[in-house]
């Protein structure tokens, strides 16, 4: 809590922050992806679902406790992507958005399922720079925009992975977002670093493995009806994830 309004004096902020300030959540499960539609520009409509989830939650370095993931089970997001991984559109975020819905836990993972590829195959010592925007249309009131500036590099394929190509990437992301709902006027600004490695099968022309990590620093500000600052919360988030193709395909 970086800036609190006078109204906060009436509440026990200490107990609230002790519960929500330092939290580590771990999720495991399967990501189902099905091709639902091919558009006229040959982009694909992909439905990406989260299933068989299991999770734990730990507070302030304490022992992890089981986490009820029912609210996330079976939820899906639809992506419209070009073969290069360029994200043209997405929908379904509204069903994950909001406190207690878990969308913030899985949004990076879901977006990484459609990680875009560099325009050229990187060679040793010749990274391929790339920059692009990612828009997350949460609902009619909330949108989040990310600017990615990354460099792709050739990486070492895992031992024993025949016919594999590995590409690593590293870069910076800036994020802005706004909640235009009149009852909760808020905005978010964020800055983060991202790194990851994708392992692709040349023969199967498929992604075998994708490991990634994000380090975010976000600031959420709420405003009063006259446009002045009401509250400001600064959040630091580290997201580490791994996607692996089943049966190595």
């Amino acid at each position, binding site marked *: 809590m970086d800036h609190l309004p006078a109204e906060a004096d009436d509440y026990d902020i200490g107990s*609230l922050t002790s519960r929500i300030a330092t939290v580590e959540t771990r999720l495991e499960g399967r990501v189902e992806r099905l091709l*639902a539609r091919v558009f006229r520009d040959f982009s694909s409509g992909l439905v990406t679902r989260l299933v068989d989830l299991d999770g734990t939650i730990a507070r302030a370095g304490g022992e992890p406790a089981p986490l009820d993931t029912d609210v996330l089970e079976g939820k899906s997001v639809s992506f419209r992507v070009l073969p290069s991984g360029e994200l043209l559109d997405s929908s379904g975020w509204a069903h994950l958005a*909001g406190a207690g819905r878990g969308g913030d836990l899985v949004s990076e993972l879901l977006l990484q399922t459609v990680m875009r590829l560099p325009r050229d195959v990187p060679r040793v010592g010749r990274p391929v720079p790339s920059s692009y925007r990612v828009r997350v249309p949460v609902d009619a009131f909330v949108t989040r925009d990310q600017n990615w500036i990354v460099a792709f590099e050739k990486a070492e394929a895992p031992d024993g992975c025949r016919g594999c190509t590995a590409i690593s990437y590293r870069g910076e992301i800036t994020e802005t977002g706004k909640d235009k709902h009149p009852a909760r006027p808020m905005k978010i600004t964020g800055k983060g670093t991202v790194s990851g490695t994708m392992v692709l099968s040349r023969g199967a022309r498929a992604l075998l493995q994708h490991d990634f990590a994000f380090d975010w620093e976000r600031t959420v500000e709420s405003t009063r009806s006259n446009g002045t600052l009401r509250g400001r919360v600064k959040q630091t988030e580290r997201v580490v994830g791994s996607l692996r193709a089943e049966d190595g395909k």
Partner: protein
Amino acid sequence: MIRLLTTAAVLAGLLPGAALAQGMGGDPKDRLDWPGSPTDRYLTSDELRDRLHAATDGFFACFRASLRSKPEGGASVTFVVDREGEAGSIEVDRGKAPESLVPCVQQVVAGIEFGAHDGDPLDVSYPLVYEVDTRGARILPYPIVFTRPRPVRLPLLGLPLDVTPGELRMLELILTEDAPAEPEPPPEPEDSPAEGEAVEPASDDPAAEGAE
């Protein structure tokens, strides 16, 4: 300029009329959340309405069997569509219609296949508007299906999945609700002004608190 216009005219002639009509955004049916789009795994009120309208014949049969001489009026049915796409907790508000209408409408709604979806169970309310004339009762497909929207709370703030309702409410009260500040009595002036004389507002007026 003439060459430019000629080029534009030739290009316009090459483009199909439909493409020009779509505009820069493309065909709206290409949107992922276009109603009825197979890409979307969530039920919308438009999709619910289409399925309920497709069952109009069933509703019509119920009303024709139950009503002969009642005046025109309204009834409604409420139900919950679970994630398997089946309707449950079906309740019929029959209005002035006879009791025999209730099980018949429940049977019709239970028979509708809404299709499996990835969203939360959906509370639905659908008005059944009917009128009675010399040929019996007629059901008029209602153009709107009512669903209960789920409140979205603090969508920009990252919060633990197991945040309690009390913690969430406290955060909302602190961050988002512009509760009017309690008006405080103005400080007692040393020299009370004469009756009817204007008093300058104090600098720590709670009304000015918002301008921080």
